[in-house]
């Protein structure tokens, strides 16, 4: 660890948190329909689609339309992946995906997960990436942010029946937020060297080794929305470690920023919509504190290097470079991967499977916390609202008062729904990983032996259920068990959490908004931030401690004792 490394982490946070404020106020303007410079396109969409953007939707309507649109889009992607051989932009004549792989991939991209059980270079055509995957990167991100906007509205006034209009939210978020920012970012990426062409390969006559076939494609456009929409689906197998996806340390910093800026901006937008900015800042700081500790921890673990390799004669000053790229260095690699697991991006610029056990435990734990630091675009926000409700509930229990959050009484119904959402995901992760390891097929998927193998499987189920999409990538994921199992986990993790959250929002929206009294627990100061962090770690993370002890912790102790597998 060096001072410069710590300064890099500080720089990332300064850039992200500094930009979260203007980004938050822009997003609030989008949600409140104060932005309309693309009105002709927007209204054209409504007209062609037969949408009345002013139609009020109760929470049930909002949830139904979101589900319906997601199902249609899922089926379309499934068809594209199965039929890619016959579709345009497939110069390498790549065959259609198998039913199980197409199911897994369609589930993955329609839930904003971007888990990749396929090797992009050989298993997907340029066309299927561009008009299949990339479209989902916009729409699934916009749908997540739309739900966040709906939840925000629930707290703004009392007696509200409508959470907004899902179609209008989806359209506006895509047109005004995701498209402009990703086009600017993609242009910067091309300037730095990321390619943008419809060719799929070219051949070079190398200096020393005959010839080299190099995969290429429309990389930059996908890369920008991949980060901005916390998607994570790499154009190449090596994801953001590939020099075409991430050419240098500056693009690495840019991509890191894109990952985080909407997630940290949403609580700020919330504060603006509430007309109480301190409320939004409190949520943002709680997210940032957990994430910054994660960044420092993972950096420390990797910078120290691998004691087994140092004993074999490797210089200690380089840190653990297995699976990392020289141009990013240790801190550029760890900060990227931690940010991409603290958000639900799941992009990687270095390979977590080869991280030191504790360095890799941090990304795992951040996913298990429920993706709230700051989480996926939209989903991170509505998840931290669930934790905020649980926090005021816990505080209410201590003093024996009916808890309220932002003037809305929090009652048994909301707490039951909140706990349902939290527990449902836990069961999927622990039971899924446990069951997989009891089967021959699941055990055979592991790339590494010993406790590290357990971590691989635990990571896969955490990643899928929490809609992250990163992997301990040694695992062989394209098997019937994992294609269908993890595909179901992704769908379940997205919708079985999102629907209870919309139900909570609907219930809270209808309640009157009370003004704060002397007995109201303040939800802006350090006391609340501390309580919220405690609730996130205890309610979100503690149930995974036994499994994580047998995985990464045991791995670390055995490695320190010199044991290899």
């Amino acid at each position: 660890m060096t001072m410069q490394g710590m300064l890099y982490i500080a720089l990332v946070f300064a850039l992200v948190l500094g930009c979260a404020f203007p980004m938050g106020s822009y997003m609030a303007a989008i949600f409140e329909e104060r932005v309309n410079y693309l009105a002709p396109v927007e209204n054209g969409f409504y007209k062609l689609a037969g949408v009345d953007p002013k139609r009020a939707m109760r929470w049930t309507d909002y949830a139904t339309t979101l589900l319906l649109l997601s199902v249609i889009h899922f089926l379309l992607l499934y068809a594209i992946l199965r039929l890619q051989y016959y579709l345009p932009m497939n110069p390498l004549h790549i065959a259609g995906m198998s039913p199980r792989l197409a199911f897994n991939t369609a589930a993955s991209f329609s839930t904003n997960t971007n888990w990749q059980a396929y090797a992009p270079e050989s298993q997907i055509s340029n066309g299927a990436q561009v008009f299949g995957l990339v479209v989902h990167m916009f729409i699934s991100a916009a749908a997540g942010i739309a739900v966040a906007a709906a939840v925000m509205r629930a707290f703004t006034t009392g007696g509200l029946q409508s959470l907004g209009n899902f179609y209008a939210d989806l359209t506006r978020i895509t047109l005004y937020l995701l498209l402009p920012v990703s086009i600017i970012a993609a242009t910067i990426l091309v300037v730095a060297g990321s390619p943008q062409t419809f060719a799929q390969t070219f051949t070079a006559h190398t200096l020393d080794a005959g010839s080299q076939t190099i995969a290429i494609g429309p990389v930059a456009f996908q890369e920008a929305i991949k980060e901005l929409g916390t998607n994570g689906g790499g154009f190449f197998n090596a994801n953001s470690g590939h020099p075409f996806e991430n050419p240098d340390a500056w693009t690495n910093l840019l991509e890191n920023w894109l990952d985080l800026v909407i997630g940290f901006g949403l609580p700020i937008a919330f504060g603006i919509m509430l007309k109480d900015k301190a409320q939004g800042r409190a949520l943002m700081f709680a997210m940032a504190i957990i994430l910054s500790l994660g960044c420092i921890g993972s950096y420390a673990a990797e910078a120290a290097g691998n004691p087994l390799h140092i004993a074999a004669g490797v210089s200690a000053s380089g840190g653990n470079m297995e699976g990392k790229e020289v141009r990013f260095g240790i801190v550029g690699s760890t900060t990227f991967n931690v940010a991409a697991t603290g958000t639900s991006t799941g992009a990687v610029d270095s390979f977590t499977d080869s991280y030191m056990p504790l360095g890799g435990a941090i990304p795992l734990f951040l996913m298990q916390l429920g993706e709230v630091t700051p989480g996926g675009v939209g989903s991170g926000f509505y998840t931290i609202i669930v934790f905020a409700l649980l926090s005021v509930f816990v505080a209410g229990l201590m003093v024996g008062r009916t808890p309220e959050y932002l003037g809305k009484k929090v009652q048994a119904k909301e707490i039951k729904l909140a706990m349902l959402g939290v527990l449902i995901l836990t069961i999927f992760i622990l039971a899924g990983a446990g069951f997989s390891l009891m089967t021959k097929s699941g055990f055979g998927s592991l790339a590494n032996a010993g406790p590290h193998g357990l971590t691989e499987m635990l990571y896969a189920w955490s990643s899928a259920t929490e809609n992250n999409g990163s992997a301990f990538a040694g695992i062989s994921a394209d098997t019937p068990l994992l294609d269908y199992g993890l595909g179901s986990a992704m769908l379940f993790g997205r919708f079985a959490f999102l629907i209870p959250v919309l139900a909570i929002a609907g219930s809270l929206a209808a309640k009157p908004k009370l003004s704060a009294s002397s007995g109201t627990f303040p939800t802006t100061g350090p006391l609340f931030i501390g309580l919220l962090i405690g609730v996130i770690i205890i309610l979100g993370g503690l149930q995974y401690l036994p499994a994580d002890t047998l995985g990464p912790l045991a791995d670390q102790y055995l490695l320190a004792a010199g044991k290899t597998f």
Partner: protein
Amino acid sequence: MSISRELRPALSLVVLFTILTGFILPEAFTGAMQLALPFQANGSLLTVNGQVVGSALIGQNFTSAKYFQPRPSALSGTDAKGNPISTPYDASESGASNLAPASASLLQSVQQRVVAYRKAFGPGPVPADAVTASGSGIDPDISLANALRQAPAVASARHLDAAKVTLLVNQMAHESFLAIVGTQHVNVLQLNLAMDRLGAP
């Protein structure tokens, strides 16, 4: 609300956004980038005498003593008989070893690479990047420390003055920004192209 009434708007929006973000914008953006930034948009190709010798961003394999050596690459494929073989720097694919830090096979590889590195470039501590496989398998760079360690051996293979080669390495090194953003490293292909321009054999 009936589901059937919602079918039209939901389906239409999926189709409209597929047309906009899946066809119109990627086409327009690609066209604009091909016009404005053709070098980068087509993969930063390097040419010598009109022939493409590689991409400035993609590493390639070097085994001759007269060239600087890149990092180990974990890429593998299969031969004609279907047996697994190592295919370092095969840029039609990409990826890492994904071996655990406590992996016995990784430790064995690292030990062998340390021995080979010391044999080629002399005793002493071995830079970490020189004996570990990269994330992409096509990492174009090596650390400056690694390049400087290799310089005397490369100079001797070419019968050049070691100081001259060391100077070239230092000239070609990418610096970090205040030691905060980025690392000190050298692009291996570009360095080896410069070596070829420098001269013999």
